[in-house]
Each structure stands twice: as structure tokens, then as C-alpha cells.
């Protein structure tokens, strides 16, 4: 008998206990680190253990580094939380970059134009409101067009990013300090008007606490609220949603306004709480990284803490590696890329299982215990 049986079988998994799927992901990260080590060794002839310890040193080496990691984590996590409701609704909002930036712009505008004209507390409130509103508008527009005319939200939100960027670029020139520098410098450097206050003497503590609170609130909102339920149903099937009496258009718009407003909040935190300046690259592409964070965590806000931590640590660590060992900045990107590749690739192994061709006799022997079919007297009652 000739055998032309395929070598590997790929079949979809029934379901996987979450411990197992996280184990697969863990293995993927380990493998990625090993692979990174090999690559590092081959390309740079450096000791990989040393490289990895430098990586961790970069993220957690000193209290200051820890705080920076915490702050970066908070900002990335916050933006990821913002886009999650939209993504859960299968509204592919890749405009977080623009929504955050427009929030930054609104906040900076308030700080620059109203600085020292109103009391500090009021100024913070006004800039917060302005940032929320700006982000909400940036979220509302694509949602409205989607709900009304079925426009493609991916393109729409992407384009809105550029509008936000151009607006920011324009206003930076309008407000530039000193003239001709092309930057706005540190806003209200002397008076610190509109700056978020420090609590406990720690610069980043307030932001970290706020985002922690936001994470819990978002988790409850998505998991237990009526809105969260509506979002999941709309995301699953719009037809089911309208069958259940959910006003789909309204849910889309409402969710995107919320999503945009939280992005606006992040913009406010960036400018008022952190950077105190405005540049077109203030968001650092985190609006896009957030998509990855959210997706890797399967849209679960609690898991997102871990995925964003991973990405932040990688980023900071890789930067440390490149500076310590005098490597090019791109080397950091290579390492991050490798790790992401492995993590995303691990998804394949959690959804599919792979089996290799086994020798014939072994197969039959192994097949026996796999038969759950009860033997109910066949064809007895039939002639």
C-alpha cells in the first residue's frame, strides 16, 4: 500500500483552558528571548546574559527607571484602555494617535491662552474639559459617518490622525517660543500654571493612580454594565443586536465618543501631567502600539496591564541595550520586533493544533481510548 499521507495535520482546537494558553504564550516569550540572545550574539558578539540583564536594568535598574517605566506603562495602558471599547465592538479605531494628540493640543491651547488668567485649579479643569471634548469630537466623527453612511472606519480614523497632526503643527508655529525655534518649549515654565500637581512628592504617582483606577472602571464597564453588554453584542453581530432591540447606530457613536474622550484624557495627562509641552510626535506612536496591547490581551483590561508592561519593558530595555553597548537605535527595534513576532505567532498555536504523521501501527493502538461513542445496540430491532 502506498502512503502519500500528509506529514502534518493542522486542525482547529476545540477550546483551551486559559492556563494552557498563557503557558503557550509564556513559552513563546521565552523562545523569543532565546532567539534574541542568539541574534545578539551572532550580530554583536556580546554575551546574551549580559544583554538581558542590561535590558532589565534599563527598565527596573534604579528607582528613577522604575518610575519612568511606571509612567510609560500608565500612558500606554491608558491609551489601550481608551480604544478597547471600540475594538470590542469591532470598530477598528486606529485613530487613537490623533485622538490623543488633539487632546494634547486642546490642553496646551488652554494652558497657553488661559495661563495666569484664571486660577490654577480652574485652568486644570478647563483644560481637562477641553481635552475630553476634543478627543470626543475626534471619536464622534468617524462613528457618525460609519453609522450613517457605512464609511470605512479604519481609513477614516487613520486620516483623522493626519488632520490632528497638521493642526498641532500649525499651532506649534503660532505659539512657538522663542520665535523661530519651531517649538513651544515648556509651557508656563515659570508659573507652572495648568500643571497637574505632584502628590506624595512623586512626579508620576498621580498619573499611575489615575490609570489604575481607569483600568478597574473600564473592566467593570465592559464586563458588567448594560453598555458593555450592548458593545459585545454589536461587536458580535449587528443583526443580532438590532434583533435584540439595541439601537446599533447609537451604540457605535456613544462608544466612539467615550473612546475618543478617554484618548483626550490621555492627551491631557501627557501635556498637563507629564511633558508640559506640545510636539507633533508627543504620542510617540503609542496610539498604534495600543492596538497591539489591547489585542494581545484579548480586550481584557486586566490582562492589558501585563501586555503593556511587556511592551514598555522591552522598549526601555532595548534602548538601554543600544546605549550601553553602543549599538544603533534600530537594534532595539529588531529585538522588539522579534518578541512581538513570537507572541503574535503563539496565537496560531492556541487556536490550532498540529499533529505529525505517526507510524501506522502506533496510531491504531493509540486510537482506541479516544472513542467516546457509547455502543447502543445497533440494528437489533431492525430486520
Amino acid at each position, binding site marked *: 500500500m502506498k502512503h502519500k499521507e500528509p506529514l502534518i495535520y493542522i486542525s482547529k482546537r476545540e477550546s483551551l483552558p486559559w492556563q494552557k494558553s498563557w503557558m503557550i504564550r509564556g513559552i513563546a516569550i521565552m523562545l523569543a528571548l532565546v532567539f534574541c540572545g542568539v541574534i545578539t550574539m551572532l550580530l554583536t558578539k556580546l554575551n546574551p546574559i549580559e544583554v538581558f540583564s542590561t535590558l532589565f536594568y534599563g527598565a527596573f535598574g534604579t528607582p528613577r527607571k522604575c518610575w519612568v517605566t511606571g509612567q510609560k506603562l500608565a500612558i500606554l495602558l491608558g491609551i489601550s484602555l481608551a480604544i478597547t471599547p471600540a475594538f470590542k465592538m469591532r470598530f477598528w479605531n486606529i485613530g487613537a494617535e490623533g485622538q490623543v494628540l488633539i487632546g494634547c493640543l486642546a490642553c496646551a491651547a488652554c494652558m497657553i491662552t488661559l495661563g495666569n488668567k484664571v486660577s490654577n485649579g480652574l485652568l486644570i479643569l478647563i483644560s481637562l474639559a477641553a481635552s475630553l471634548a476634543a478627543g470626543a469630537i475626534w471619536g464622534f466623527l468617524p462613528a457618525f459617518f460609519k453609522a450613517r453612511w457605512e464609511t470605512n472606519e479604519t481609513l477614516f480614523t487613520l486620516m483623522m490622525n493626519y488632520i490632528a497632526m497638521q493642526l498641532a503643527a500649525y499651532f506649534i508655529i503660532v505659539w512657538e517660543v522663542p520665535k523661530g525655534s519651531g517649538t513651544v518649549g515648556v509651557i508656563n515654565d515659570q508659573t507652572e500654571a495648568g500643571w497637574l500637581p505632584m502628590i506624595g512628592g512623586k512626579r508620576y504617582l498621580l498619573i499611575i493612580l489615575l490609570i489604575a483606577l481607569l483600568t478597574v472602571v473600564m473592566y467593570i464597564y465592559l464586563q458588567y454594565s*448594560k453598555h458593555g453588554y450592548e458593545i459585545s453584542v454589536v461587536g458580535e453581530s449587528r*443583526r443580532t443586536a438590532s434583533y435584540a*432591540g439595541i439601537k446599533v447606530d447609537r451604540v457605535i457613536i456613544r462608544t466612539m465618543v467615550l473612546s475618543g474622550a478617554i484618548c483626550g484624557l490621555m492627551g491631557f495627562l501627557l501635556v498637563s501631567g507629564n511633558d508640559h509641552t506640545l510636539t507633533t510626535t508627543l504620542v510617540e506612536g503609542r496610539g498604534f502600539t495600543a492596538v497591539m496591547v489591547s489585542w494581545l490581551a484579548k480586550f481584557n483590561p486586566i490582562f492589558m496591564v501585563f501586555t503593556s508592561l511587556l511592551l514598555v519593558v522591552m522598549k526601555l530595555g532595548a534602548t538601554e541595550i543600544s546605549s550601553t553597548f553602543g549599538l544603533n537605535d534600530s537594534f532595539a527595534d529588531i529585538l522588539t520586533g522579534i518578541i512581538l513576532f513570537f507572541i503574535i505567532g503563539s496565537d496560531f498555536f492556541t487556536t490550532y493544533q498540529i499533529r505529525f504523521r505517526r507510524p501506522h501501527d502506533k496510531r491504531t493502538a493509540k486510537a482506541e481510548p479516544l472513542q467516546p461513542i457509547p455502543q447502543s445496540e445497533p440494528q437489533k430491532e431492525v430486520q
Partner: protein
Amino acid sequence: MENVKNAVRMENITKRFGTKVVANKAVNLELHEGEILSLLGENGSGKTTLMNVLCGIYHPDEGQIYIHDEPVTISSPKDAFDHGIGMIHQHFKLVDVFTATENIVLGLKGHLDMKEARQKVREICEKYGFDIDPDQKIYNMSVSQKQTVEIVKVLYRGADILILDEPTAVLTPQETDKLFQIMRNMQKDGKSLIIITHKLHEVLEVSDRVAILRKGEYIGDVPTQSADQQSLTDMMVGRRVSLNINRPDPVDPKPRLVIEHLTAYDELGVKRLDDVSFTANSGEVLGIAGVAGSGQRELLEAVAGLYPVKEGTIQFYDPKVDYSDAISKRNIAKSILLSIITLGVYLIYWEYLLVKNIRAIKKDESSCIGEMLCLIFVPFYSVYWWFTRGKTVKEEFASHGCTATGNEIAYLVLGIFGLSIVSMAIMQNDFNSLPPEVIQSNQQNASNKPVNLVGMDPMSIRKAGVAMSFVPEDRLGMGLVGTMGMTGNMLLRSWRKTKGLFVSRKEPEAMAKRIWQELEVVTPSTNYPVRRLSGGNVQKVLVGREIAQEPAVLMTAYAVRGLDINTSYTIYNLLTEQKMKGRAVIYVGEDLDVLLELCDRIVVLCGGQVSGVVDARTTDKREIGVLMTQHRGGADNEA
């Protein structure tokens, strides 16, 4: 039987999915040359998997396939074609804008000569009696013609082993007969055929031999002559099954849903429903028959508020009992409120009058007490006055030191009249701004006026108190959320009911557990995603939920499509149970035998029009078949 040659022999075929699911377990199947073999089995018995193995879509984990007694390995559909095996799938795979011939030659390699191809197609058609025009575009074709193209496509490629997967599901009885004739022609030409179908009478009619699968195992085969419906079912299910649908007579049928002149267009402006009129009564099962795509889906969705209606009305007559309680409570509350207001206004009015009188006539210090007494007693005496014609009221007034004149008595009477008129007017006005459910009951009590559902969306229909349940055709795409468990899906109906920001899962959880037990849904837990359940269990969840709403009207679209005999009968029994509870059940079905057995009346749709309404007890399949294909043909049969 010794010198029978096998076209196909499958030996010990085992196919597993994952580690747990064994779709086929050591199946042995033989297809003799020149025979028609029926492959029979419940859902999930592995028929389609086995045929997919034969066609090269799946590779078996174990076992060997022999074609014409030669061992072969089939690892792709192309391999299968090379061995002369062709499968006609349930879902057609045709390019709509191409002609029949273009579709047939699509994907063939080598030099393409359309003229020659067309000629060859014609020849095949003539040979077997197909009725298609090789130059007709697919989008102009009926379902049956499309199926024919699929068959010709397979024959064109030289297949001599044909597999037809549920080919009759989409056909009318007449078209089915034609298909069977063609199958016999092919058989005479030496082709070997395997037909998969759930309809036992068709098995008996067309096949030579029946092979039966149960839960992935090969149970056996019987020559068709020595089989009957009962014996085949028993073999298929593995125990004795009663094949009768209990159909009690309707009790006290009253119009529940009256549809008149319903016309609807789809988004491309094509008329989907054309002047549809019929009535669904309480306590009866109304069947809706028709070839697939005759407007059944649009009709039900229009009633459910999911499809835009251009013209016509859908009147819903509410069974009073369901709402009288809630409405009377509301009415009592309103009345009490209004009478308090009335009383207040009334008292102020009389205070003014009496105080004026008392001050004018008697200016002594006791007037204060008199005033108060008057104020308290006047409303009561005014009622008393109606019975005693004012005599006593005057005396009473006098006894409290107030002498009311005739004029003032007249004011009193007028005041009472005026105020009662004003309060009635307020009441009436107020009712009009009440929630529709109250208006509706109000109107219904007054003139028995129904609610028109046209222009309402599902939420406003529910808010209007119209108790309507809908089991849509697309179970996971419309009726259920696949990624959620039973509880989450129960919520789909009740999420709005709880107050506040958060959903309550307690009640849905209880409902899910109840359905889980009562309908014997096979699922590991109420949170296990329903998408992963088998078709029958998915449908049980959906039907269970819809019935649990205690609807006045229950609409079901293809409630048993794809379900095996056992589950189908469970569903039929559930529907009959609903009917006996006085609910109006609308059953859109495709199996005419079932429609005839289950329903009380049958509305036949054809091209979006009602071509007839027939009494299911007196009509037969032929008549319905004719109506299904003939516009307005039997419109006089109105039952």
C-alpha cells in the same frame, strides 16, 4: 450479489477532529457501480465528513479508499476529480454574472473553445434530460436550474461517481421529481450516485440501497425494497421513535396578527413582499410554505420590525388578559391622582363661594367653624345632593349658619359638572400621552382596536407590550450571540428590564438553567459559548428562550433546518404545546410533509406574493407544490 462491482469502497475510514471528536469511526462503505445509494444519518452522524473524505477535502486519519477496486489516495479535490468523483454541494459555488457554460468550464486547464464547450454542454443536457440554456446567466436562473448547472459541471468533467448533498432541500416537489428522473437517467448511463437527504420518503423513492451512519459509525445497509420509514428511522436513531406529530384541533381561534397588503422592497429596490395579506389566529399553527427565497424571511422580519415596510399594515390583536392587570393598576393610580387634583380645585372654588356667602350673611364669630365644616362636608353632601335633589344640602348649609340661595346651588351643580368634564378631558388627554401599551388597552377596551406594528423597531414593539417571539432563520447570526454562553444569550431578551447601569445575570442564569434541563441541551455549562454547541442544541437554546418569553405570537423560520429527526420532533412538540396554550404560532418550513402534519392552515408564498391559503387537513403536497410555483394561481382557495 457476488459479481457486483464496486465503484467506491471505503475501508475502515476514521476521521478525528482534535483529540475528542471522532467524526467517522472505522466506516466501511460500498457504492456499487450503477446504483443510487442513500446515505442516511442524524446530524453529526458523519455523513458529510465521510463524503468530504471521499472528495479529498479531508484526509482520513486511517483507512483506505478503493475506486473501482484500485487502492487510491485522495488528498485534494483535484485528485477526486481525476478519479471521476464529483460532489454537488448544498451551497452552490457559481459565478452569478457568468453564463451556465462559462461556469461549467471555469477552472479547466488547457485550450478553451467556448463553441465546443457549449456544444458539449448541450449534449450532456440532451442525454440526461436537463433543462437549461447554456447561454443563460446564473443570476437569471431559479434555484433548481442553478443546481442543474452544478450537476452538469460535474458531468462535463467526466465524473462517473456523483455525490449529491441534500439536493432536495431547496426544491419544490415537482422539481424534486424532475431531479429524481435525471438521477435515474444517469444511473441508466452507468453512473453511480450517492445522495444525502434527511427526507425518508425521498430515500425510499429514489435509491436502490440505503447506508446508515449513526454517531460516526457505520450501522449497516439495507436494500430499499425491504425498508420503510419506521425501520430506517429506528436504525438511524438506535431506538424506536414515534413518527407522528400530534395535531389537536385549535381551541377558540381568534385573530391575533392580521397582515394586510404588506409590500416591501430590499435595499436594491427589488420587491420582496408583494401585497401580502393573511391572518394568524391564536391557538393554531399557521404554516408558511414556499420555495426558498419567496419572501419568507422578509415577511417575518417585517413583522418583527427588522425589515422596512413600504405599504400595508400588520395589526396585532392583543389578548386582553395579558395586560389588563398592569393597565388597571396604572389606571387606578392615575384616577386617584386626578381625583385628588379635582378635589383640591373644587375645594378652593367652594371655599371662595362659601366664605363669601358666610361673610356676607352672617358676621358672627362662629362662622369660622361653619366655614370649616362646610369645606369638609360640601364634597360629601354634593354627592348626597344628587340623590336628594338638593333639599338636604340647603338645610345643611342653613344649619351651619349659611343660607345658600338658589343661584348658589346652581353654581354648585355647575361646578360639579364643569369639574368632572374638565377632569375627564384631562384624563383623556393624559391617556394619549401614556405609554402605547395603555393607549392600546384603552382603545381596545373601547373599540377593540389593534396595534399596527408597521414602522416600529423591535424595541418599540416590545415597549408597546406586544408579546412576540421570533426564532430567526440565521440562528447564530441573528438570534444568538455565538461567543456568549446560554446566560449571555438569555440576556439578549431581558437586558433592558433591570433598572440601573448594570445588567443582572441572576434571572437569565436561572432561565438558562431551566432551559438546559427541560430541553436537555448538551452543553458543559451555561457559560460555554453557544457557537461551539451542535446545531440541534443551538436551536434548543434559541427556541427555549423565545418560548420562555410567553409570547402571544411565536414566529419560527426553518425551526428544524439541519436538525435530526429526534430534535425535530422535540421542536414540533414544543410548537404544538405553544399552540395549545392559545398562542399564535407561525411556522415557516421547507418540508411539505411536516407542514401538512403540523400546521392547521398553510399560507403559500410565491415570489413575494401569497399564492394561496389552504387548510392543512384537507390539502395535499401536489396542491401546495403547484401554488409554490404559480403566481396567484390558487388565490381562491382562501380558507
